[in-house]
């Protein structure tokens, strides 16, 4: 397969031949990786060159993390190779990658809580003599290198591991890599929890490492940072490498366009059936996660909530559902203001919530399909607190059939079903509860394409029957294909409201990613002010 076959629309991927030669280049060739039901990486070829900062960009699920994990030895590619200086690299685990001078720094570095900064940096390699740690030597070494890299003020040596801030943890992790001769350094969203000043310091360090000849991979959603820091930008989409371009040739809009560039699949067949009959209105909601949230959902309407991971969408669902505390604001259900303190009250008032994390938050895996499906309606199927197995089956089995849950029996432990069927059991639970508003958080995460299509059809059907659906999804085609209206969230706020029929992925990503306060180059900022 040639490169042009992978990305027919964009042909500016450099020919691999012309990149070869520079010593210390990490050459990724034709790497593919599949997981059950998803092709995470498809024939990706890329050079990571010493003395250069290369950005990885892409939507959630585009394959960035998988690629990082392959470089780090967490995963092994199904096919394709990594090589450096003409030598093929095969890492069976991260330690092997470390030995080859490749380090990946994830968002949450492993820090040992009970020991100091110096020990944390030199963990596993403490200077010893006769089996005794040479504490003075250790402290001197660490102090010297902290001063050398300008972190002596930011990272006081007398702090213990559990007293470190996120930024300090990142620095500890970076210092770890520096002392052992790193050749390729990857940073996964390192700035997500840093202050501006800390970001500046980190950038200074990264540039310095680049100038010393380290090959640097920088993964971030922040376009501004990428354009400021990186030399080249590699853009991934659906496991394919779409483009590798010099950062100076790119701008916000171009990056967003490259990241999206997808056609809607025809599995969506949403015919809007929204009425003016409002079932849920949220006014001026504030919580520990949210600032001034206003939105509404009408009966029969599918309302998409788009945004990046961490924008506060799941938390918004949980605040409405009574699982997380609300600080101020009104929740109006069917025209009446309601106070919801716990999930059971939310269910009683007609809200259903299918969580994003089925295994952790959705299902009791060791209990049966039937029990998991009927748990939200126990009081309705009980007489004098005795669960009537007749009423239970009556309430559940219809939905199990309708959703075509493939299970040998209703008594099968739900943990033994496939992901798609587990999700259908969750849906059966909420359909049986007959809510007015159903919150679906990533309803198709981790399930195969066939089951996805069934769930899309079901969402469409439910809305047509008059249910108000709040659809949280990180898959833009899903949001665009199903939603009648779309709210976009960023950093705990709603940054825009779009019409589902006319919205584009570019618009959504713009509202979700581009800093609304500093960017005025696109029409996005005007959209955000138009809401309500």
């Amino acid at each position: 397969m040639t490169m042009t076959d992978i990305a027919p629309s964009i042909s500016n991927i450099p020919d691999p031949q012309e990149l070869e030669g520079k010593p210390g280049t990490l050459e990724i060739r034709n790497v593919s990786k599949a997981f059950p039901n998803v092709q995470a990486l498809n024939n990706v070829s890329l050079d990571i060159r010493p003395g250069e900062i290369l950005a990885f960009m892409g939507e959630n699920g585009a394959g960035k993390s998988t690629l990082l994990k392959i470089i780090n030895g967490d995963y092994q590619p199904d096919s394709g190779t990594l090589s450096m200086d003409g030598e093929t690299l095969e890492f069976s685990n991260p330690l092997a990658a470390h030995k080859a001078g490749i380090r990946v720094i994830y968002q949450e570095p492993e820090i040992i809580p009970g020991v100091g900064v110096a020990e944390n940096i030199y963990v596993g390699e403490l200077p010893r003599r006769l089996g005794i740690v040479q504490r003075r030597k250790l402290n001197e070494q660490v102090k010297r290198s902290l001063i050398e890299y300008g972190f002596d003020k930011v990272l006081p040596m007398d702090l213990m591991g559990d007293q470190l801030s996120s930024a300090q943890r990142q620095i500890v992790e970076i210092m770890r890599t520096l002392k052992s001769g790193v050749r390729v350094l990857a940073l996964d969203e390192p700035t997500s929890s840093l202050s501006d000043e800390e970001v500046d310091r980190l950038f200074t360090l990264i540039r310095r490492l680049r100038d010393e000849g380290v090959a640097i991979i920088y993964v971030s959603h922040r376009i501004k940072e990428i354009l400021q820091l990186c030399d080249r930008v590699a853009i991934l989409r659906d496991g394919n490498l779409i483009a590798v371009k010099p950062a100076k040739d790119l701008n916000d809009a171009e990056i967003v366009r490259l990241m999206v560039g997808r056609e809607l699949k025809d599995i969506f067949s949403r015919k809007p059936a929204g009425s003016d009959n409002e079932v849920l209105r949220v006014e001026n909601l504030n919580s520990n996660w949210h600032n001034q949230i206003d939105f509404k959902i009408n009966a029969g309407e599918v309302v998409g909530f788009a945004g990046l991971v961490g924008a506060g969408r799941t938390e918004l669902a949980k605040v409405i559902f009574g699982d997380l505390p609300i600080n101020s604001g009104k929740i109006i259900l069917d025209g009446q203001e309601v106070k919801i303190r716990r999930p059971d009250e939310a269910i009683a008032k007609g809200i259903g919530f299918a969580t994003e994390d089925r295994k952790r938050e959705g299902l009791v895996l060791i209990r049966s399909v039937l029990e998991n499906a009927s748990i939200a309606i126990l009081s309705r199927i009980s007489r004098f607190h005795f669960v009537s197995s007749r009423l239970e089956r009556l309430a559940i089995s219809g939905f199990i059939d309708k959703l075509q849950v493939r299970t040998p029996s209703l008594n099968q432990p739900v943990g033994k079903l496939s992901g798609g069927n587990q999700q259908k059991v969750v849906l059966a639970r909420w359909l049986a509860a007959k809510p007015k508003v159903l919150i679906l958080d990533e309803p198709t995460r981790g399930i195969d394409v066939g089951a996805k299509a069934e769930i899309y059809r079901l969402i469409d059907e439910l809305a047509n029957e008059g249910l108000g659906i709040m659809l949280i999804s990180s898959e833009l085609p899903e949001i665009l294909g199903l939603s009648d209206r779309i709210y976009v969230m960023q950093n705990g706020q709603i940054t825009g409201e779009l019409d589902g029929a006319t919205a584009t992925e570019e618009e959504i990503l713009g509202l979700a990613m581009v800093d609304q306060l500093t960017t005025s180059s696109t029409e996005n900022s005007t959209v955000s002010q138009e809401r309500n």
Partner: protein
Amino acid sequence: MNTEIASQTNEQAAPQVKKESFIHKLMSTIGPDNLSLIFALILLVFLITVASAWFGLSGGDRFFSWQNLMNSLAQAIVIVGLLAIGQTVIIIAGALDISVGSIASIGSVVAASVLAGIGTVGSLGIFPKDSALMAVVAGILAGMVAGMINGFIVTYLRVNPTIATLGTLAAFAGIAFLLAPEGKPIGVVTQPDFTYLAQGRFLTDLPLPAMGGAKWTGIPILTVILVIVAIFVHVIMRYTDFGRAIYAIGGNAVAARLAGINLTRIRVMMYMLSGGIAGLAGVLLAARTTSGNPVNGNGLELQAITAVFLGGAATSGGKGTVFGTFLAVILVGVLNNGMNLLGFNTFTQRVALGLLLIVAVAISQWRQARAERARSRA
């Protein structure tokens, strides 16, 4: 539970259920965990009655006599059995109640106190004196109040259940003394209705032949009470919304809450249930020892918890049955009884009991790990 529900439904609504043989059905009703307990029990009885003779131990032949089975064994398991049944509910919900021994002490003191009309509760005059029924009711209520306190500490104060009940283990033991007049045991309690609880016999006229040189003298009332409570809790766990909620909480508390289970209410209720049963156990202790002694329940919690884990409950919660616990209680009872008959001293018995628990949990962990490996391969 599952197979029973399946057999009641019409086959059209439910997805096709495979036809199973009677033996298979019976086996799956009992469950593999309980089946291994039954095998262990048979093995143990064999070791006591037959194999012990091969090693030159005598006394095993006395096991199968009405005297031994109905007097020694059946009575010995009652108190620990009751506590274990209450504990089963707690452990299935993924928590622990270490305070049950102390609650039993409270129940014992309160019952004797009401009966005799002395002590803190007895002199209140709420409960009429000399009534065995009132004594029982007061003992159970005292246990439920203690359980409610446990429940509040665990839910509203968010204290880890083990720590919370470790605290109340000490506190309730102290309260048992404070409730007794000047901290001294209340006794001798000789109210005939009350002592009947411990000494009475049920079905004395059953035409059963003598066994082991002893005539049939009936089933002890104590044992009857144990069986009734076991059935009561079994029914609650298997057929009520409360039982469903307990299993769900133990299996995945986060998911249970997000599916509308009111965790606080269920947890308070389950501690009240366990406390009430412990209170009843205390009442029966008072009846058996004919005194309301504040140290009556000391140390019983460990045996109760042992029996629950032996009975197949998972340390992680969500798994376990009253029936399994009941079998485990019998197993522990037979172990103690057999070792008594064979002349082992109580110290050796304690070593054996400790080892039994560790072996049982180790086996259950090993099986769980194997099941998880099988799942991850699938």
